[in-house]
């Protein structure tokens, strides 16, 4: 029998039992849909985070304090990173600029409006290295930083919450009870984690002395002249900071230096693992769908034993019968896969719209879902099809 005829025969059998075919297909639709939705959401989130990190630029290194370790016990962040360290790093060759910053959380008040935000002490370089642009007003000047002035630049979200419908510029807000004049508002950067939209920037010295009484910094963002020298520069910074912190060779560094590339790799690894885990969970439902196909095909073979006997009596070979039932299973499964692909992509798209994250339907997810549903059809259809093709024509004809 030609493959076309076999396909037609399979379609006929499926259409003559529409409800059953649809229900059987549903298992694969749900399985493939779940896998595709998980992959698309995972990839979308990953792309989102990566875009955020990439916006920093690939010529940037970030130094953060390490974690204090006392025996097996991990303490909080160590407080050894100082502004002087940043100044020393700035002296190294190949460094364009260094932006030390200190971060802490605080309440910001304007009249009765109250917002909890991340307050970051920064220098003018910070705006350039982080590529921050003010929508109103201007970044801090050197004078404002050195003079420990009580001025603030608001992130766009913070400004929106504190000043709904009014002009924030030159207004005064209270941070930890102290009055600050608003000299600028940042242009919105969009969604993302630790977005500057949700931060309040103040001069670094003000942050350290007036607001929080600390002498250490929490981040040092370094822009290098040549991004191809990133690895060398990283080593030089490490050596410099180690000698400044008087670390003996056997001691571990009390800070971490990471490049955008490093962070991307870590994030990629984490989101990749998360995506794979979720997809594996979803794949279980695909397995259940496959077993559903096998179940229905076994019932179908039994039900149509006499038909198989008739077909054999008039000349169907065992291979013809095998192919007929196998193609039925594959058609159900593949069709379920195509529908599941659409459903999964639809779910992921809707969720990404609702959550405001990115939507990516990776090509590998499309290929994977179609390939897997094809394999499901063959894998779970082959046993019923074999049992059909192995029927004894005499017995099958006698079957009531």
């Amino acid at each position: 029998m030609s493959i076309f005829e076999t396909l037609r025969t399979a379609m006929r059998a499926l259409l003559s039992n529409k409800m059953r075919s649809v229900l059987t297909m549903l298992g694969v639709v749900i399985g493939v849909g779940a896998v595709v939705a998980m992959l698309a959401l995972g990839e979308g989130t990953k792309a989102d985070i990566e875009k955020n990190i990439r916006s920093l630029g690939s010529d940037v290194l970030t130094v953060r304090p390490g974690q204090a370790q006392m025996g097996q016990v991990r303490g909080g962040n160590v407080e050894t990173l100082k502004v002087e360290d940043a100044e020393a790093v700035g002296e190294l060759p190949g460094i364009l600029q260094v932006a030390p910053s200190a971060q802490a959380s605080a309440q910001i008040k304007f009249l009765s409006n109250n917002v909890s935000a991340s307050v970051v002490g920064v220098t003018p370089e910070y705006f350039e290295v982080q590529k921050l642009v003010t929508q109103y007003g201007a970044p801090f000047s050197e004078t404002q930083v050195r003079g420990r002035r009580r001025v603030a630049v608001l992130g766009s979200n913070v400004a929106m919450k504190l000043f709904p419908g009014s002009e924030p510029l030159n207004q005064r807000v209270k941070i930890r009870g102290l009055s600050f004049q608003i000299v600028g508002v940042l242009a919105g950067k969009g969604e993302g984690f630790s977005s500057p939209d949700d931060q309040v920037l103040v001069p670094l010295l003000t942050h350290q002395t007036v607001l929080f009484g600390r002498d250490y910094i929490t981040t040092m963002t370094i822009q290098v002249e040549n991004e191809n020298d990133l690895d060398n520069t990283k080593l030089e910074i490490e050596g410099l900071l180690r000698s400044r912190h008087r670390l003996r060779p056997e001691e571990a560094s009390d800070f971490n230096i990471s490049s955008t590339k490093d962070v991307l790799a870590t994030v990629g690894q984490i989101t990749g693992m998360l995506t794979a885990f979720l997809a594996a969970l979803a794949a279980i439902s695909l397995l259940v769908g496959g077993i559903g196909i096998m179940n229905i095909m076994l019932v179908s073979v039994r039900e149509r034993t006499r038909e198989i006997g008739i077909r054999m009596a008039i000349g169907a070979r065992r291979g013809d019968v095998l192919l007929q039932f196998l193609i039925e299973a594959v058609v159900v499964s593949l069709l379920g896969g195509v529908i599941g692909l659409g459903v999964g992509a639809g779910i992921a798209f809707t969720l990404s719209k609702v959550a405001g994250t990115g939507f990516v339907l990776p090509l590998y997810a499309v290929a994977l879902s179609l390939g897997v549903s094809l394999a499901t059809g063959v894998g779970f259809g082959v046993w019923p099809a074999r049992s059909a093709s192995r029927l004894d024509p005499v017995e099958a004809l006698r079957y009531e």
Partner: protein
Amino acid sequence: MTAAIQLEGLEKIYHEDQPNIAVRAVNGIDLTINHGEAVAIVGPSGCGKSTLMQLLGCLDRPTRGSYRLEGQNVSRLDDDELAHVRNRRIGFVFQSFNLLARYSALENVALPLMYSSVDNPAQRARAVLERVGLVNRAGHLPSELSGGQKQRVAIARSLVNQPAILLADEPTGALDSRTGEEIIQLLLELNAAGTTLIVVTHDLALARKLKRVVRLRDGKVEADGPPEQVLAEAPAGVQ
């Protein structure tokens, strides 16, 4: 000229490896049927009629002995070769019609052609349907046909690949006597046109209409000859 069917020492033994339950359903049959003959196979229940029918129809292989179909020994063919023989050289007509319920009359007739990849299957099927007088019912499902019409469709299906022999197993068993009569007439017409006809039946009225009757008993040929001779000497209760 070679015979249509030539059986020599044909045996079919079920469970031969377990002597206490072994059944010698066909127990050494020698039989020659020539082209164009019309033969009735009769005998009491359990005499081996059905088993012989399955062997003749290449649905099953004999345990021992040889079966030559138009000169070719088909007793040792593999499954695919047997399927090919059934498709091309044997037509089956069953008591219960055995039509596919979801296929129209025309599609049922064309079904064997699907397994032999011939050109214009629909056209050929229509021609055969015309021959059994049912071309006006081509698009009907079996459930929309009477018993006699169903059997005509089944006969058309058995003829569509122009087989050398037509095997009919109780072809009138599920029909009323008038319709059965029509089916017998149709089978006889086909035989007159050259098709070798073998009918397995309990119905002695049907057997009398064929030129030759073979009576089986306990898996062996008990009598073989013209109906007036074989059926006259039949012991009471053969039917």
